[in-house]
């Protein structure tokens, strides 16, 4: 006689439906019935294990410390980001005042700069090239950070804010 496979015994022990021929075998076979009962008893023991197991010591101070450390890192990151933004705006002002010498733009800004060339004087275009490069680098950095912090609404908000400021600066340059 061919007995039920282990997986079929499990299926029966879990209370799931067997194919008619397998169900018929189970009804007739004492050995398979015993195996199903043993599996059911095991399931019962597993389900009855304690749901909660306390830790050996109190982990709260470590958890609290880790959260505080992350908050501090985030604060440093946010402050650095603010400084970078301030520096970018300062460069814009200085470059517009001082004339040529800007950093070459990244490829993503080329189209915007091409449009700007038709609207603004060369000194403004040059300063904008430098500033858009800085904005884009800051955005890339923030987006990489956001990828590892998907649920962090604060970072997303800062990305949006930076995009808005970048667009505003472009508009300002276009009207200069």
């Amino acid at each position, binding site marked *: 006689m061919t007995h039920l496979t*282990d*997986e079929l*015994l*499990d299926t029966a*022990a879990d209370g799931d439906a067997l194919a008619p021929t397998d169900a018929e075998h189970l009804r007739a076979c004492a050995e398979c019935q015993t195996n199903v009962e*043993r*599996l059911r008893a*095991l*399931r019962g*023991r*597993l*389900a009855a*294990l*304690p*749901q*909660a*197991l*306390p*830790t*050996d010591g109190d*982990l*709260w101070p*470590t*958890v*609290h410390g*880790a*959260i505080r450390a*992350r908050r501090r890192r985030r604060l440093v990151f946010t402050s650095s980001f603010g400084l970078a933004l301030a520096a970018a705006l300062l460069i814009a002002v200085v470059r517009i005042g001082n004339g040529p010498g800007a950093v070459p733009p990244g490829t993503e800004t080329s189209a915007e700069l091409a449009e700007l060339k038709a609207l603004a004087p060369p000194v403004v275009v040059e300063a904008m090239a430098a500033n858009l490069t800085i904005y884009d680098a800051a955005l890339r950095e923030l987006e990489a950070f956001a990828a590892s*912090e998907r*649920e*962090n*609404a604060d970072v997303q908000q800062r990305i949006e804010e930076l995009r808005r400021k970048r667009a505003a600066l472009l508009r300002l340059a276009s009207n200069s």
Partner: protein
Amino acid sequence: MHEDRELATRAARGDMVAFEALYRRHSSRVHAICLRLTADRHGAEEAVQDVFVRLWERLGSFRGESAFSSWLHRLAINTVLQTMRSTRRREARVMTSDDGELEDAPIRTLAVEERIDLEDAIARLPQQVRTVVVLHDIEGFTHEEIALMMSVPPGTIRSQLSRARKTLLQWLQR
């Protein structure tokens, strides 16, 4: 529970007292999940810390559609599974093993005189089959839910579960 939801809302606004209350209410349950999945006391405690740090960061995304405890238990399971996957990938790089992702260590046989209780037996199972039996038979997830969590077909989960139960029965009969 209503109290959990209220604490979660306060903690999401930065209230550390409310967050500590959540920790006190749920840490033993989270520890049980982590300990059974990792089968390692030290690893389980690290996992508990990771889970609660993640919880702090993600509280804002708790919408209250499910019970807070179910949401937290899922977070705990995903945290442990993610750590296990990273460890396996790191070990695979170091050992340049040919084993596939789902290959698992062979189940060892126990000496006749070696008597073990159920928790010990679960801890001695190879990682993959242990994960499946913990999630299915202790935590009550379905084959399909576990398949999604572990990114493997449900058929694989069924055979891993069968392997786990058979081994547990053999060990516990001694």
